[in-house]
């Protein structure tokens, strides 16, 4: 018998006869969390992610590129990693270089340029799939066009978020979008820049991931 079969046999021999009804998670959320308007969700999202040390800028649908440029200039960053296969990445790649910001695209497997990613990539620019108001959380589903390391290795991570895609809770996001029927290779919740309190409970930012997290939040009334 294999270890697998022995473990399963032991558990099966002693498992309770019935597990009872499926826990009713949805009704807990219905009873304990309120549904807010888009504007209120944006406000709550912003409040919590700012508490976690992220920078948030409200931008109009047409104005995010200008703000992106301003943020990079203010931080004196002259190189931004973008995803050329995405609409926002292509836009940045076409419009920012004339303004003096180089925009290399993540268009080749990491094995071909790992040291440059780790040592020579000051900032990365991605979109968020959505966000969660309750906790001030960005939802990212990296993919072949916009790979996983873009939001992790560069010391500054800039995220484009459409405020129309903010959910009240994590539970609402996964239920509304039917996540259980198809999760990608990697899905992420990000709620601020990387941090640690491992030395004498003193909070320090930029432990291993981005030191700074900037959110460009597209809102209709801006």
């Amino acid at each position: 018998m294999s270890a697998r079969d022995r473990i399963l046999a032991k558990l099966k021999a002693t498992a309770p006869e019935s597990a009872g009804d499926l826990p009713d998670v949805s009704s807990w959320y219905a009873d304990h969390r309120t549904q807010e308007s888009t504007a209120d969700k944006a406000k709550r999202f912003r409040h919590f992610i700012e508490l976690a040390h992220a920078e948030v800028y409200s931008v109009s649908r047409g104005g995010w590129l200008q703000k992106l440029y301003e943020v990079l200039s203010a931080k004196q960053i002259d190189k931004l990693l973008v995803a050329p296969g995405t609409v926002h990445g292509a836009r940045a790649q076409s419009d920012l270089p004339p303004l003096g910001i180089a925009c290399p695209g993540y268009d080749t497997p990491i094995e071909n340029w790992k040291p440059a990613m780790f040592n020579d990539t000051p900032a990365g620019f991605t979109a968020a799939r959505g966000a969660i108001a309750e906790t001030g959380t960005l939802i990212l589903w990296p993919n072949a066009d916009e790979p996983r390391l873009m939001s992790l290795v560069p010391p500054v991570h800039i995220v484009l978020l459409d405020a129309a895609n903010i959910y009240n809770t994590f539970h609402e996001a996964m239920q509304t979008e039917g996540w259980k029927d198809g999760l990608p290779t990697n899905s992420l919740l990000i709620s601020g820049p990387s941090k640690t309190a491992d030395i004498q409970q003193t909070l320090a930012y930029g432990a291993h991931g981005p030191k700074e997290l900037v959110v460009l939040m597209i809102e209709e009334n801006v």
Partner: protein
Amino acid sequence: MNAPQTPHALHFMPSAGFRARAKDVVENPFLRQSFRGAMDFLMSKRAAQFPDPEELESLRRLGERIRQYNLAKLPDLLVQLENNLTRNGIQVHWAETPEEANAIILGICQKHSAKLMVKGKSMVSEEIELNHAAEAAGIGALESDMGEYIVQLAQEKPSHIIMPAIHKTKEQIAKLFHENVPGVDYTDNVDALIQIGRNVLRQKFLEADIGLSGVNFAVAETGTLCLVENEGNGRMCTTAPPVHIAITGIEKIVEKLEHVPPLLSLLTRSATGQNISTYFNMISSPRKPGEKDGPGEVHLVLLDNGRSQAYADEQLRKTLQCIRCGACMNHCPVYTRIGGHAYGTTYPGPIGKIISPHMLGLEATANMATASSLCGACGEVCPVKIPIPELLIRLREESFTAPHANPAMRGQGAGHNARTSAIWRAWSAIYSSPALYRTASWLASRFRWLTPRKQAGWTSVRTPLQPASKRLRDLIKERP
């Protein structure tokens, strides 16, 4: 006076000697101060996250229900998880013992001729002593969580399951970095210290052949491994190296993806008083064709190591509801005074006292359950309502009653002592018979001069006990 080095900074610390180690720490004001300060900090952070007692109580009830439901279906869910992970391209391995788990992990490393494994925080990897097994096999195993990195540099073990280096002061860490990291000057500025760690470890994430991580929740219906963290090292370990190996205890499974949000909320709020951790990382497959990063191979090692023994007993099964938040140790008056190392086990504090006997046997852990005043704080804060005080009483019974046939636990009766047992039997008989009690108390007051001056543990820090010259019943009779 300089802060003394942490006592018992040993690998493979035996579980025996618990009392002696506890005494050492109680007499060390520096460690006492470290733990007291840290626990007060964590308790107030948690309290601030739960302002509404009704919300807390109903969420704990939901968390308890979710964990009990999933444990009841555990054997089926393990098979479902295995099927879905395999379908997604993640390779599943099973280990009954730490030795088997180490052999599986090192086998994967050797297949890839790996020289360096970077590790995200994983208490299960501590449980199996993976770092030592890797070292013995000539494979570097480097901890990358800041606290774990510090503890590894100091050649110690974590003293807390969430904050591994909680026993260390920043001055001790400054000295450690100065002496062990090439080219680093002494600084006790916390930001500077973190940057030193960051720079060292970035290079390692870049070079590593294998990334190892734990698992906070494994979702059976989707075949997904979920990781909770703040630093980003967990994401590094699971994304940058070409191979990712995850290891988890068999109990950390939920059937439905929607079981995750309430448990995640309970976990981060109870553990560190955060409404959510910085990162919640859900991994459902290795790199797919066309994807530009992520490991090409992902493995999951499912470890039993005594969990199936706890599972077999209805009461002890509740031990497995644990989501490893550490709130029980943060609120434990004993843990706060003796710290994590005194226990000598991978998991310290109240959860350590109830889970370790299943992993190590009661022979090695017979005294652990006695290190409790049964104040009940652990059970009161447990986010999934594990009745820890009840389990401690049960474990005391398992340890100290005479060995019997078909025991529920390995090492049952290990703490049994015929003389102590006889004394307690006599005590029980006296206190359950009024006639015997009257006689015994009369004798005790008459022969009080026979009371020994040395009364085992009691007189080591207290004056001796002596029966009163007059019994309460005598005093009442004398009243006018």
